[in-house]
């Protein structure tokens, strides 16, 4: 009986080992785009939906004007997991679009998305002249360029002009200490002590407050050059956490939580009940897309945008912000890699396509050329973010093969800290560094 059991185990393991599999890389092929070509339909998968999906489809289909033989089928509602599983299953889309550049490192490392460097070289595209430096922080890993940006995001400060003027402020804050003072003054309370208007919503886990977006204000470093985590060794992280906690404590942790709950919690972020849009939050950090939502929601808030305030000790940081956004790539195993490249090249470098897309989605255009568009620059609310994107100190968080895991772990600690449950921050940070290191080793 035992012998039979051992044999069964061995057999099952053998079968398992044989049925798992991957395959080889194909060499880069190029074709002459101007030559005659049979009609071809390329499928593009993205996680767009609704209004944004329609706009993207329109621009994707406009490629027909350049290559009349190319028809594009845009399949929406496919997140990173879905795309990954399709690649695993051997039936990938011809072009993939992702909203999570954190995963790009893994895509590059496993070659799930193909290296586009040969394609760029074959077409004589100078990477550094075409794109601002910031994009390389989230589209390449270990010199593999497996993705290119298709529009981008930038984070900055939104502030309610009326509320600021009422409290006697004519200028938005430029340093974080100014921010703290203003946040305190701008917060109004109800008779029962609960918050009526919040000067600033500092809580992690609310809207776009993350260790990344706020950490950028201190230029805090995640990793050193050998990819060792520096959360405990870079003092800027501690400074950022302490600054954030000081605002939380000043306004009141419990009160902020209840206030957020009353707004409708996380659901309100994408609805017309958004705290800032309804005038209940005076200042907040958000991406450039908020402009489009304010317009679509027909919010009456009188607002302005500016770069987010920075560390008093690093004034040259002002004007920069976290950037990064939608990426596009060619999955492994596609049947028409050369044609896929033509579509990717169009969507990531063609100025008119990018400008049309940017105007429709209200995201920041990603190439140097498209950033010069006069109409986009004329929109004051929006041009702030274009400038932020081009600032030399703007960057995305460094990407690693563990994707968002490091962010999740750190986010957890940050939330514990803001609630006052962390007694020894330094020790916790080094434990976190340790865990991230081990997670990176596990792969």
């Amino acid at each position: 009986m035992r012998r039979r059991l051992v044999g069964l185990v061995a057999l099952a393991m053998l079968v398992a080992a044989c049925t798992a599999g991957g395959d080889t890389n194909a060499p880069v092929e190029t074709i002459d785009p101007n030559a005659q070509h049979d009609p071809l339909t390329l499928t593009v998968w993205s996680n767009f939906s609704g209004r944004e999906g329609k706009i993207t489809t329109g621009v994707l289909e406009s490629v027909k004007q350049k290559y009349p033989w190319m028809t594009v089928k845009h399949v929406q509602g496919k997140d990173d997991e879905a795309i990954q599983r399709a690649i695993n299953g051997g039936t990938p889309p011809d072009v993939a679009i992702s909203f999570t550049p954190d995963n790009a490192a893994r895509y590059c490392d496993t070659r799930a998305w193909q290296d586009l460097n040969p394609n760029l070289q074959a077409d004589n595209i100078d990477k550094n002249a075409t794109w601002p430096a910031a994009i390389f922080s989230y589209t390449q890993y270990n010199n593999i360029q497996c993705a290119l940006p298709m529009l981008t995001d930038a984070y900055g400060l939104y502030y309610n002009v009326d509320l600021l003027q009422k409290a006697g402020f004519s200028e938005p804050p430029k340093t974080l200490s100014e921010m703290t003072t203003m946040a305190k003054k701008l917060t109004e309370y109800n008779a029962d002590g609960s918050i009526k208007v919040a000067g600033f919503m500092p809580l992690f886990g609310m809207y776009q407050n993350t260790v990344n977006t706020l950490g950028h204000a201190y230029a805090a470093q995640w990793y050193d050059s050998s990819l060792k985590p520096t959360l405990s060794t870079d003092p800027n992280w501690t400074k950022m956490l302490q600054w954030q906690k000081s605002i939380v404590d000043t306004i009141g942790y419990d009160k902020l939580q209840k206030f957020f709950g009353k707004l409708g919690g996380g659901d309100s972020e994408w609805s017309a009940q958004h705290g800032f849009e309804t005038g209940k939050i005076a200042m907040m950090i958000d991406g450039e897309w908020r402009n489009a939502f304010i317009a679509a929601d027909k919010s009456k808030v009188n607002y302005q945008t500016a770069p987010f305030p920075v560390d008093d000790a690093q004034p040259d940081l002002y004007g920069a912000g976290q950037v990064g956004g939608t990426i596009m790539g060619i999955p492994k195993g596609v049947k028409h890699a050369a044609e896929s490249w033509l579509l990717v090249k169009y969507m990531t470098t063609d100025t008119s396509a990018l400008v049309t897309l940017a105007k429709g989605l209200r995201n920041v255009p990603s190439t140097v050329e498209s950033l010069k568009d006069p109409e986009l620059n004329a929109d004051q609310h929006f041009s702030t973010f274009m400038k932020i994107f081009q600032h030399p100190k703007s960057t995305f968080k460094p990407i690693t093969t563990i994707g968002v895991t490091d962010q999740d772990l750190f986010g957890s600690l940050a939330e514990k800290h803001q609630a006052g449950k962390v007694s020894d921050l330094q020790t916790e940070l080094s434990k976190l560094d340790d865990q991230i290191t081990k997670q990176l080793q596990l792969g």
Partner: protein
Amino acid sequence: MATVTVRPPAAPEKARVAERRRRKRRSAWRRQLVALAFMSPWIIGFTAFYVYPILSSLYFSFTKYDILTQPVWVGFDNYTFMFTSDGRFWTAVRNTAWVVAVIVPLQILVGIGAATVLTRVRRGLGFYRTVFFLPTMVPLVAAALGFVFLLNPGGPVNAVLGFLHLPEPLWFRDPAWAKPGLALMAMWMVGQTMIIFLAALLDVPTQLYEAADIEGASPLQRFRHVTLPMISPVIFFAVVIGVINGFRYFTEAYVVSKAGDWDNPVGTPQDSLLFYSSHLYNSGFEGFHMGYAAALSWVMFVVIMVCTLVLIRSSRRWVHYQGGFR
């Protein structure tokens, strides 16, 4: 016992006896085939969906595998990481243990309590039974969303608490109160357990109660010495089912964690709702560490086997069966 004398069969009888024995063997063999034929769907299913996955899961647990590339043999690395470096593993274990140790007894207690109340009412039994059972009908996802809304820090429950001048916890936004929030939801859904206990309570022979009354037993003594032993098989059943469900606890936690913001990692707030299944799902299907997920699943398998064995062994001591055999 009467004695039977057996005469040795005469020669032609020997052939007949042999023939009868052969026929019996053939019919036994046919019976076996028929039974196996009837069992075939399950046999195929069991092999394909249980035996094979468990064994190959063992294989994968020793590899690093993300489906895209070939599995890479890493020996015990996954297990080493799990037990020494993965803080979330121990958090998940603690949280799951909390469910098993807190929610299961709570549900049983509330179930017995509610059932007892039902045994006392004469009129309207059907109505009450329906009302108590109704929450179980609500799909878990809907119930979870409902409770997220109810336990919103600015929501109805806190409004009532505030009105009564009681402290208003932050429920699902506070790691210390998130699990109690789930416990509330579990208690709201005791309907199924309660029905089983109701049937069991009604099954207790009244003579025993009468005998106890004659002996002058107090209600508490009656409960301890008559009711409890009589319903102990059902308690055992509820405990086993409760423990198993505790280990696979997933849906409520997933929905609640992601309710605030879909980017929230499973387990928000601060991993307080990170249960074992959630950690497994996260590692394998959001982190694509299939090998690690397989290792986690094997550890889960072993623990469940051990727990079930312990439960069954211990049951011999405190479970009392009226009649019949196991």
